[in-house]
């Protein structure tokens, strides 16, 4: 009919917003890739990537960060699954307080958390009212800082892990499963490890992957606690190199993409909001 109704059918403004958004998404990535491929003058090539991945320091820090992520995930699961399970089964009155605690990391950002952790654990822990030292300051030896940083990461991942696990348990009938297992003579340990865990594995995987995404490139806790992790390494590399950091940045982006893709695969695309900026 008239020209106006035809124009109305094409969502003009929607396209404008979408294209603007797409540009905003893609331009920084394109610029990073473009830059990272130009390490050799006049040649487009992967030299920056080769150099970055060959650096033994990169391999060491990246492996270390992966180990941290894995430990964090295991500790979170051991800590959160029995708690969420017990709350569903026997202790609904604890739900409010536990949910409140899992939201606290949104109020206490990483920089504040590490501030408090350092102030508490950089002095020796004495038996109250005596001078007998129970524990050397955690920040003074390697295992101590490892414990501190894993604990810090468990805290940062708490909201995501708890929500994942709790959502997972909502979809399975925890009570019936428990009663069935108990009537077959299973112990609590068996129930949790062999009945509950397999039933919430999709939720566990998405929580674990989100935790991984948070931990593997984390900078704030890692640099203040002085651990040789990937985040601080990348930051330092950026201070005196140009092309390798760009290559590693793009690789990090791809890694994030893989992690988020896997989460979407496991959950059907519900849980994907995280943040450790």
């Amino acid at each position, binding site marked *: 009919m008239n020209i106006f109704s035809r124009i109305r059918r094409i969502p003009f403004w929607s396209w404008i917003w979408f294209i603007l958004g797409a540009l905003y998404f893609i331009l*920084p990535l394109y610029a*990073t890739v473009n830059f990272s491929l130009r390490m050799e003058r006049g040649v487009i090539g992967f030299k920056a990537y080769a150099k970055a991945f060959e650096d033994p320091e990169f391999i060491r820090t990246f492996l270390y960060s992966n180990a941290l992520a894995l430990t964090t995930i295991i500790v979170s699961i051991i800590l959160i699954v029995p708690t969420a399970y017990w709350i569903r089964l026997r202790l609904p009155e604890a739900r409010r307080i536990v949910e409140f605690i899992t939201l606290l990391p949104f109020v206490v950002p990483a920089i504040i958390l590490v501030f408090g952790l350092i102030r508490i654990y950089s002095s020796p822990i004495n038996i109250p009212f005596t001078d007998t030292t129970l524990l050397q300051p955690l920040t003074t030896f390697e295992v101590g800082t490892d414990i501190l940083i894993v604990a810090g990461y468990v805290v940062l991942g708490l909201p995501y892990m708890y929500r994942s696990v709790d959502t997972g348990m909502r979809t399975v009938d925890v009570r019936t499963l428990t009663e069935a297992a108990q009537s077959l003579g299973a112990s609590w340990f068996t129930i949790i490890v062999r009945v509950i865990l397999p039933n919430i594995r999709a939720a566990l995987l998405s929580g674990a992957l989100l935790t991984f995404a948070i931990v593997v490139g984390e900078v704030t806790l890692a640099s203040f606690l002085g651990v040789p992790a990937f985040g601080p390494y990348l930051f330092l590399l950026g201070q005196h190199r140009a092309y390798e950091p760009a290559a590693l940045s793009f690789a990090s*982006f791809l890694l994030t993409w893989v992690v988020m893709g896997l989460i979407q695969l496991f959950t059907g695309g519900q849980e994907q909001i995280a943040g450790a900026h």
Partner: protein
Amino acid sequence: MTQTALNSKVSLPASDWKKWIGVSPFFLFAILFLVLPSVRLFIGSFTDNEGQFTFANLLQLFQEKSILDAYWLSIRISAATAIGGGIFGFLLAYSVTVGGLPKPLRSALITFSGVASNFAGVPLAFAFIATLGRTGFVTALVENLFHVNLYKQTEFDLYSFWGLSLTYMYFQFPLMVLIMAPALDGLKREWREAAEILGASTVQYWLRVALPVLLPSILGSMILLFGNAFGAYATAYALTGGRLGIITIQIGAQIRGDVLHNPGLGYAMAMGMVIIMAISLVGYSWLQRKSERWLR
């Protein structure tokens, strides 16, 4: 029968108490690594150099110009990226939900938003340096196309307020998209039909029906974005190397070495941040509850 009734009455408190043992590891962990550190900062902010109780630190917070400037800069950046990211994220979410774009674009945008809202810190800073730094891709593009050098002929600087805000936007508006897309899906078709039957134009429908329903959700999400930017440290540190004195950078400097020459004041600075974060979280959950009245 009396026996059993008596038994259950007697054993109830005991089993009640025992039930809490199941969650004690979680509470122990939370106390050791979340509550104690926070309480330490809280107490510290009320303690002077001699270990005596004082309000001086909190009062000094409002007198020290450098601290007030840091808070104000952080608040401005967080508000700018929350409002900017909020509006732009809303428009994007609109375009792929009710805006009539093809379905595949929607899933592409949602996936990309999931990735981008998680892509932050050092890699994000480096990506923006490669884009809008002095020799960045877009900087060169603008110079070639329009013969304008962003750094020499305009006020633009990536390592400043606007530069950092532009960088934060990269994880801010995807977050908005992720929250708003389901909310926009919640708009009922009947509302639009009813409005049209009653003779409302599209503008009227949006201004009088859709936006009022969505408003708590939009505002709540913007508050969430505010908190998201306010607590950010790594991105800002990697981008500006600590030159742009936002509050997280100032706190970082205080942790590295008591730059204020007053530990108590440092703790008070941290507590101020926690209070602002807490206010925004409370505001968010209040608005979230309001929005649930209409949406779902």
